[in-house]
């Protein structure tokens, strides 16, 4: 019983991290209708950004997150205005190709700049835990989970209650109507993409504190984010949170009861099931 509780806790904590990773992908996909295949590479770049802050300037990885977010926001804004905007009206296939190419370029630039060596963000408290009943909760994972919750709820409130958030949702729902009401899509798209990339970068910073960083972590993270976005649904950050937690718990339970080889079978099996049964995500449409 203790083991089950611990494994569930592991899954939930991991799921929180998964949710932040997918948040940006779902936002960009939902609003710009771009499945950003370079999403994982932006997570990787965010992780390197945090690692450099930590390693050279000794900035605490959690305190460094806002800096990483700002840097990645600027990068995202630039990439959208300079690159993605060129094909924003193009068919889905073109955006897939372009973001795939971007992914390759970012990965190889990262190897040139940072080498293929492994890095880890290892603050002094990386070995600290909170004991809660029979469960051991790693402090860094708790921290990452708290950031994930805060970001998800923050995003939700932002989209629901701010002028910019409403404009983003309006554009996602009906571009023509939004334009008639004075929304300028070019700027708005760039802002949305920038927010998405800032979220990816933040996720990268968190990822670097619990896992390891190398230029090639992106592809599998994109895949995972993709699955979570599908499972959780695109138009509500809370759905992404549910999707992330769900996937984290499913992976943990699969490892415990079925065997660790079958983790991907389980998670992508669920992905297929959701697409068949509930194509709008677990929470469905909220509007």
């Amino acid at each position, binding site marked *: 019983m203790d083991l089950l509780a611990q494994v569930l806790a592991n899954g939930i904590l991991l799921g929180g991290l998964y949710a932040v990773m997918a948040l940006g992908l779902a936002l960009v996909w939902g609003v710009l209708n771009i499945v950003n295949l370079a999403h994982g590479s932006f997570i990787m770049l965010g992780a390197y950004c945090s690692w450099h802050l930590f390693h050279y300037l000794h900035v605490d990885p959690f305190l460094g997150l806002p800096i990483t977010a700002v840097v990645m926001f600027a990068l995202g804004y630039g990439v959208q205005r300079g*690159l993605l905007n060129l094909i924003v009206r193009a068919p889905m296939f073109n955006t897939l190709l372009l973001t795939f190419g971007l992914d390759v370029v970012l990965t190889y630039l990262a190897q040139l700049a940072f080498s293929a060596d*492994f890095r880890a963000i290892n603050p002094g408290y990386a*070995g600290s*835990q909170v004991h809660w009943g029979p469960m051991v909760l790693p402090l860094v994972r708790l921290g990452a989970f708290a950031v994930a919750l805060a970001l998800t709820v923050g995003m939700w409130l932002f989209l629901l209650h701010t002028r910019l958030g409403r404009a983003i949702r309006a554009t996602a729902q009906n571009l023509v109507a939004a334009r008639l009401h004075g929304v300028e899509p070019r700027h708005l798209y760039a802002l949305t993409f920038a927010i998405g990339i800032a979220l990816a970068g933040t996720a990268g910073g968190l990822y670097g504190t619990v896992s*390891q960083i190398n230029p090639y972590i992106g592809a599998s993270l994109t895949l995972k984010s993709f699955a979570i976005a599908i499972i959780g649904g695109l138009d509500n950050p809370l759905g992404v949170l549910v999707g992330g937690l769900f996937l984290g718990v499913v992976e943990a339970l699969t490892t415990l009861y079925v065997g*660790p080889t079958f983790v*991907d079978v389980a998670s992508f099996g669920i992905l297929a099931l959701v697409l068949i049964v509930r194509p709008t995500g677990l929470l469905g449409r909220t509007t």
Partner: protein
Amino acid sequence: MQLKPSLLLSSFFAAIVAMTPAAAALAQDIVLGASVQLTGPVANTGRYYRDAYQMAIDKINADGGVKVDGKAHKLALKLYDNQSDVNLSVRQYTQLVTQDKVNLLLGGFASNFQLADSVVSEKYKIPMVQGGGASNEIFSRGFKYIFGTLAPASNYFGSTIQMMKALKDPPKSVALLYADDSFDVSTADGTRALLKSAGFNLVMDERYSSNTSDFSTLLSQVKAKNVDAVLVAGHETEILNFVRNAKSLAIAPKLYSFTVGVPSEDFRKALGKDADYAFGMTAWLPEASLKDRWFGDAEQFAKAYKAKYGYDPDYHAASGAADVEALVMAIEKAGSLNPQKVRDALASSQFDSLYGPIAFAANGQINLPQLVIQVQNGQVAEVYNAKGFVTPPKYPMPAWNAR
């Protein structure tokens, strides 16, 4: 920081140019071909082979080259980057043989690559000496043209298990965790049998998916089952995550040992102090007792390597350098560049190298004992070899908060 497409593009081309090795000069006589992981997820191990091959070839050329029929020939390397992609690697070997017409082949890293690449060398009957694939699968198909200088995967944990029996207050329960690829499955099959005959109680035997990044659940099981010793056969990324997860969950078995990572400088750098107490194995340490025709001895090789490339070589690099030497010795012995003759000379190789004594079994694989090593205060210490303990092992591993 606006990234213009043109800037991205030009950097991309710069990257491609930088990664393309200098074209092998045609004037040179003996061309060795290889496809190695210079980019992609295992690039950090692939580089050992590129650097070791180049260094051995430069050294041999500086020393007068290879003598065939009394005439000295220079060696050249034709190297492709397979981007850590097995399919690409097979295509590149086919290209090396059919279009580039290289004389002989060297391997890249990892068993799953050698397993596929050796089909090309077998088909075209060009001998390949590879120092990156240890899986028994590679050598169990009756192939005649593949030679390997890594000790068999099935015996990677052999010396570790012997050491475990010899420890004071030896561990009783053991967990065996392994990734689902050729090398690690081979390792696990061998280890399972060795553990059984040594009388250990195997309480966990789990195969995990090769891209696993989270080991919390497996570690929680290790704790719940009160496992004394954890043996992990996997890739360096997984081992790093395993150690980090263990620390974050404060799980410290009496010992853990890993098939990869421990001998690599990169691993110890990434983990810092947390790398301490990790056991591993290596068939090679840079010791002056390993004499070599070209480099003097292994210690000098390691020094020259570090000076040239800025990082310490590990057994992958030594194995790679030995591959070049094995080919050169075989060419000289055969007195010919004829692939069949070189193949036969390779099969009866017998010489001392910086990597150890080189001799291949009938299946083409070398057999070298694995030395048990442990990270102690950030340094790799040789703990146990065929003769017994060398440096006292730090055992049992203390709790994470007592370090």
